[in-house]
């Protein structure tokens, strides 16, 4: 269901964070995705009404940013990094394998609505390449095999936990609410750091360069 006046309280709490209301466009678009999974024309109208803008102004913003979807994605949206480093280390092979495995092209969703795939740009986890993101959670050090298992499990509604993330994988809509700034209380879950993050510190300790 799109954003409506029933969502006034949460929309107002988002708008009130900012000195000027227009700044709330982006979190409100994330909130729209938390409701429908994508940005509907009705939600655009609602955001425009709330912010006293033309719907064309909201549309202009919604169409600029790739995370705002204009059609439904899966409950589990799988992004395979195919920027140079991940691509070379195996990202290209993973993306090709997933397309074939799911019989999907880039930016398509399975007929059961469970899984969609997209090739994504660098996701700031290069020391864990090749990287796959699901609903913007990290799945580090992937292979063709592990990525296939990941999407199969997701289709069965039982995806494994992210490598560096919460103890179970939230849905696309749940994480869209998080991106709108609604704290889901799960920050304490998962590791504080992965092995690669800690490598320099570990060596420094071994060499006695830090207590």
């Amino acid at each position, binding site marked *: 269901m799109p954003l409506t006046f029933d969502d006034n309280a949460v929309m107002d709490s988002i708008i009130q*964070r*900012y*000195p*000027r209301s*227009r*700044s709330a466009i*982006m979190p409100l678009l994330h909130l729209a995705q938390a409701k429908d999974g994508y940005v509907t024309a009705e939600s655009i109208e609602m955001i425009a009404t709330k912010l006293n803008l033309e719907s064309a102004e909201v549309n*202009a*913003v919604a169409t*600029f*940013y*790739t*995370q705002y979807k204009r059609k439904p994605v899966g409950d589990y949206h799988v992004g395979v990094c195919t*920027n*140079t*480093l991940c691509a*070379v*280390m*195996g990202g*290209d*092979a993973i993306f090709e394998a997933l397309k074939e495995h799911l019989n999907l092209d880039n930016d398509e969703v399975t007929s059961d609505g469970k899984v969609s795939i997209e090739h994504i*740009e*660098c*996701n*700031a*986890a*290069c*020391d864990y*390449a*090749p990287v796959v993101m699901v*609903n*913007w*959670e*990290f799945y580090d*050090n992937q292979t*063709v095999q592990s990525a296939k298992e990941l999407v199969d499990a997701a289709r069965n509604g039982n995806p494994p936990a*992210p490598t*560096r*993330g*919460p103890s179970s994988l939230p849905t696309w809509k749940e*994480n869209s609410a*998080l*991106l709108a700034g609604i*704290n889901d*209380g799960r*920050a304490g879950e998962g590791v*504080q*750091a*992965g092995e*690669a*993050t*800690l*490598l*320099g*510190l570990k060596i*420094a*300790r071994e*060499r006695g*360069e*830090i207590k």
Partner: protein
Amino acid sequence: MTKLTPVLSAFWDQKDSFTIYGYKRNGGYKALEKALSMAPDDVIKTVKDSGLRGRGGAGFPTGMKWGFIPQGDNKEHYFVVNADESEPGTCKDMPLLLANPHVLIEGIIIGSYAIRANYAFIYIRGEVAHVIRRVQQAIDDAYKAGYLGKNILGKDFDLELVLHVGAGAYICGEETALLDSLEGFRGQPRLRPPFPAIAGLYARPTVVNNVESVASVPSIINNGVEWFASMGTEKSKGYTLYSLSGHVKNPGQFEAPLGITLRELIDLAGGMRSGHTLKFWTPGGSSTPLFTDAHLDTPLDYEGVAAAGSMLGTKALQIFDETVCVVRAVLRWTEFYKHESCGKCTPCREGTWWLVQILQDLESGKGEAKDLDKLLDLCDNIAGRSFCALADGAASPIISSIKYFREEYLDHLRNGGCPFDPARSTLFELAGDAR
């Protein structure tokens, strides 16, 4: 042998390093107490005197940026943190925030106090859900502890801090595009001057700093200018995070004094993957000109890397071995710049499109030798001719790869296609893999 200097990463190996308890147990928020007992101008002077330079790529002195904010102007000031880490290869700020978001928040409060801002923002990229969770929780906990809000630590200083989540646009890492995005517009760079220090967010004086730069401030306040300057080189002071990725045995984060070399870092990473040799690398992300094995001993500080013809950038060291086709690598980066060009400036919007066409032809062996000169001519007409540095970044890998690997481009033409087998570069074996 250069000694490692874990400061930001010093307690990342404690399970609760990201919580307010973990941070305080390790001395967190002590620098804030100290800073709030100083005059704001003295805080700026301390950061200036430390020699801290921006860790987001440009290397501009952080304290000087703070000093540019006009004081006594009766206008609101804003403190904005750029956490839009998206430069290909760059992977330092996200693990930092995952492991310890409070050090950034402490730096923000100190910085806001110094420039006399009562409103601060963290602009974080949208594709990192768990990092967003950790930062949001840290902000909530900092409010509860009285580090944010009204009368911080009982002083006459108020600060609101808002986490603003992006939505997938590399260009928003450019500071003026970031500000437009934060104001609720498409993220497109602004013409400068005026600089953000004069007319930034909502046309008010604004500081925009990278995560790592701001996170470095509490340690400087705590330990002093001389401690900080005892690390690093003459004009590149202090410690920093170097991120090694690619074909090394153990990729990872290494916090070291500025000026360490790639030879030392590869050694720390356990060497290249077995049986392979270094071919090319980026010193600071894909927008910095490529280096080769001839640059293993280049000091990785701002001056050393510049003198060798590249830029320190974000210290994102992407390592590629001899199995990787440089034309494939450069084409992929160029496709990235084309995709991420915001479309505002014609040389970048049209130019990156043409660069991709020509590189695709070359990679598939359909081009001609004179295309290399056309590429260089195009780069010359793109770099430096747009509002921001995205187009300059697009030109960097092309110009540098032709400089060092012209013959490899020509091999594609002689071979009628790419002479490399991409399966040899992957970390895992593929069906039919000949290795």
